[in-house]
């Protein structure tokens, strides 16, 4: 099996995986970073969202062979102490129901806020369109993003 050295949450990690293995499974199985979730495997639900050089991307559709030197950030690396403004806002607004999709929601929202500190309602809705929440916690997700954008 080929070896790859990738940059995850600020650290180089060497992993063995088939070249077509989606980064999602490398993160979860090889690196035990289970915060990035599997939902659909075809980039339709957003549960597996991570940051690749600061951009929100679906790790289920990014093969390990295409990662290269790009900097990967997962929910585990979003903040040192779980205190990113979005994580705090998620707590204040008690957003999660089942919670499964929430790391993907937070990662999508974090990429938005890093580029656009005061997004409008429409910008939030458009950005979050790719993230499904089957529990439909959408009203709370929206409130929490708006609150975090003011922190």
């Amino acid at each position, binding site marked *: 099996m080929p070896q790859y050295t990738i940059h995850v949450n600020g650290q180089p990690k060497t992993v063995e995986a088939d070249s077509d293995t989606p980064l999602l499974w490398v993160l979860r199985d090889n690196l035990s970073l289970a915060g990035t979730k599997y939902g659909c495997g075809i980039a339709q639900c957003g549960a597996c969202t991570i940051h690749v050089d600061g951009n929100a991307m679906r790790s289920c559709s990014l093969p390990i062979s295409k990662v290269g030197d790009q900097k990967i950030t997962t929910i*585990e690396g979003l903040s040192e102490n779980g205190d990113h403004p979005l994580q705090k806002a998620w*707590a204040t607004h008690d957003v999660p129901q*089942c919670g499964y999709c929430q790391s993907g929601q937070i990662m999508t929202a974090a990429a938005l806020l890093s580029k656009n500190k005061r997004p409008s309602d429409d910008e939030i809705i458009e950005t979050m369109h790719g993230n499904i929440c089957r529990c439909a916690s959408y009203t709370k997700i929206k409130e929490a993003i708006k609150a975090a954008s003011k922190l």
Partner: protein
Amino acid sequence: MTKNNPYTNSRRDFLKWGMASGAGLVVGFNFIGCQSDTAPVEIMKAMPSVWNEFDAYIKIGDTGLVSIFSQNPEIGQNIKTSMPMIVAEELDVAWRDVIVEQAPLNTDWYERQVAGGSQSIRQGWTTLRQAGAKVRHILLKTAAQKWGINIEDCKVKDGVISNPTGEQLSYGEIAAEASQQTLPEEVELKDPKEFKIIGQSKKNVDLNGIVTGQPLFGYDIKKEGMVHACVMRPPAFGMELVAFDDTAAKTINGVIETVKFGDKVAVIAENTWAAMKGKKALTAEWKQVEKAEDSAYHSEQLMLHLSKKADEPRRVDGDVDIAFAEADEVIERIYEAPFLPHNCMEPMNFYANVTEDKVELEGPIQTPAWQQDRVSKILDREKSDINVKMTRMGGGFGRRLYGDFGDEAAEISSLINKPVKLLFTREDDMTAGTYRPASAYRFKVGIKDGEISAYHLTEAFYNGMMFGQMPSNFPCGAITNYRVDCHNIKSNITTGAWRAPYANFLAFAEQAFLDELSGILDKDPVEFRLELLDKAKSDPVGEKYNYDADKFASVIKLAAEKSGWYNRGNKHLGFCAYYSHNTYVAEVAEVELSEGEPIIKKIYCAVDCGIVINPKAALNQIEGGIIDGIGHAMYGDFSFAKGQPQSDNYNKYRLIRMMEAPEIETHFVESYNDPTGLGEPTLPPAGGAIANALFSATGKRFYKQPFVKEMSLLG
């Protein structure tokens, strides 16, 4: 609910087992008390060196930290927070000094470890209160004995007991001694007006784990020596396996072996990706041995049955046939819904380790006791050999009432003699479902002198019929001639409960029909419902009906008031009210036309669920239920061709997304009544509310779900 005396050896053994196997809960987590609304990680009391066990729910540490077991499975309904809040309230401790642990299955110690029917809070209420109050009682008794005073002269606040002279003893200081006392059978409970924790919003106890990506779910399980399995199942219902070829699968890096069980083949692999790829590489020959059903056939059968009366009606008041013959006008409408998959965000999965000594099962299951029962039969093992641990679940919605995935994991582990994690892909999840059955309802009403003289409801349903007292739901009791017939049509498609079974579609059908009827009778839709309720109350027809007319009227009036129903002017509002799962809900939808297209802007919701335990969490359930109801009524479309599901992933199955979710304004009926559940009851009225508002905006009535198929207007 506890069943036995807590001071038996089995309790101690159970706790030891629970702690050993669930140690990660206390030590591995960021160790956090349950304080609400603050940044993560704030330790209020230190980790105890000694835990003192009181009953199946409570342990108190020497530092005063309290651990409360949550007995029921957590599927996102937030009972892992709300149930311990009830215990903590009666125990009289500060919520910040509480940690919560998920209890494993223990049928000796807990009753009804089930997530289903919106019943956890309602059925757990008294037992949970008693559990807290009994322990409080013996703590106070111990302090009183030490001081040589009466228990009535002790006061307690936040886990600190004081006597009239101002001396204090904390729960932590006397826990060891108190835990040796015998628990009373029953003690007096607090006056609900004195509640300090119940009624306050407390943050989800797993929140920090969720937002930092901790491994809380079944899909996240990782254990020593564990292999991964993906399973090839028959591609269509009614098929069996003739032969399979695993040559290509076995060439894939990481694939260890394949194993056939029944009509299924499992690919065992070192990692998830290899298991998924291996499964795709399998080829097989299948034989259709039962009818290959398709959606046209399903629909045809539903319509055929709707035209017939059942051999035994479910309820009869008066005689609808005579009334129809004498009516001035007879109105008849038919409503139809498709099969639906549950689509939990976390696909089905389970961990199993079958060894000679024991069977370890762990994963997301709404019915752990049933899981244990079935695996005991499948593997021919004693139930006492089988441990079931519950993980947090990435959604349930009824799908995880059925542990077919747990059965598969156990079977595979016993065949390969290894610990295994069975994983469904999204495609497996959508095509190997236990679907919400397709159904249809026919409403036939006779009108005489401007009033309803007869009401005949006929149900046609696959693999079931409305349960319990549902035939006596509203408007039963208000109509002189009333009849309900139900037809159960057999299908080989696996079906089961889906959030708010029966009500999830019947509510729309009934409430859309009543809306249309109010127009025909030239009555205001709200006034029309209130008139019927008034009649049911003042002059009830027949045997007891299945609702409280006053409570129902209260939520209807509250929703009408808060939505400005009577001053709606040109606003397009739609009204709907439904009673299900012991909770009363009324919803008003507001639709706006934007360049000719109807947009669902807002839902006003009124709820009577008794006393509200955890307000923010309650709102989450209410809002989630409403948006889920809107989503499936609007977009939920699923069909079969030759027994094969026609959608297998989110590119072919539309779920509601943020941009389609309206604003929601909720109002609770203030109440000190015992609480009822909220996981389901706000979903059923959502479809009716939006259908009636869409009619107001567009003049179009909807008779079939999903509405989007009948709307050229909305895409």
